[in-house]
């Protein structure tokens, strides 16, 4: 129930920011009605869970995003440097990264963060063997193996998220 309310707040905020018209009563009520309808449909589809509305991530994700942004910029500069040589300075490397995350949500965040930083690309996720990563350079692969991002993504998962994930799996 609390999660549905959270979804409603997020949807209402999105509607208000996208519309930008606040002095028109009819539009306002139509917006409120569409937000409610969306929550109702999501509820009926049974997707109002820890993956659809991951409120448990909370402040942790707000701290994680700026760090990820800086990593993306650094990785971009590295790849651009390698590309702009007369002969692209690449040494393609394949590597498996053992995931430290406890939930599917954490693993997806980690795999997407790997892909989002240029120079590393996740190809396959296997619960037993970890994430298969293709890297443009040997250095990038060693960066993945240093598990810095892996640890940070695991730290995103609070105990509450882990508990909710188990609850959602066993109906």
């Amino acid at each position: 129930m609390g999660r549905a309310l959270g979804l409603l707040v997020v949807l209402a905020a999105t509607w208000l920011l996208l519309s930008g018209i606040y002095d028109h009563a009819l539009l306002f009520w139509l917006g409120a009605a569409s937000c409610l309808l969306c929550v109702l449909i999501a509820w009926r589809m049974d997707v109002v869970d820890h993956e659809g509305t991951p409120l448990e991530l909370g402040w942790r994700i707000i701290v994680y995003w700026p760090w990820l942004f800086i990593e993306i910029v650094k990785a971009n500069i590295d790849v651009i440097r390698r590309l702009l040589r007369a002969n692209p300075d690449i040494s393609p490397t394949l590597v498996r990264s053992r995931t430290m995350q406890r939930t599917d949500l954490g693993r997806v965040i980690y795999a997407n963060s790997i892909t989002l930083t240029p120079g590393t690309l996740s190809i396959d996720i296997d619960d037993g063997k970890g994430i298969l990563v293709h890297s443009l350079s040997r250095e990038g692969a060693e960066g993945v193996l240093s598990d810095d991002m892996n640890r940070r993504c695991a730290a995103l998962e609070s105990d509450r998220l882990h508990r909710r994930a188990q609850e959602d799996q066993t109906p």
Partner: protein
Amino acid sequence: MDWHVIASGVLVISGAFLTVVGAYGTLRLPDVYTRLHAASITDTLATFLVLAGLAIPSLVAGEWLIAVKLLLVLIFLWFTSPIASYSIGHAAFFAAQKPKLDHDLTDGEGDKA
């Protein structure tokens, strides 16, 4: 010229330049995986620079709602583009597109593809 015109111009032009770099890399690199790396420059930093360049004039004009919309565009793009890249890489790998590798730090999975 005002500072914000110059700043937004520099951002948009450098974003456009990075898009060209990404396109060049996509043509220049040897196989589908390395080309995806080049394409992700266009997906991430180039998009950010262009959108930031577009946001500056609207912020200066006090139209902060437009800047918020541009931020939402960036968030949606950064949420969805890695999924598209993953799909392409995953499909290529399991369609037996063997990656051209210098090092294979797995137990020979590059050859199994």
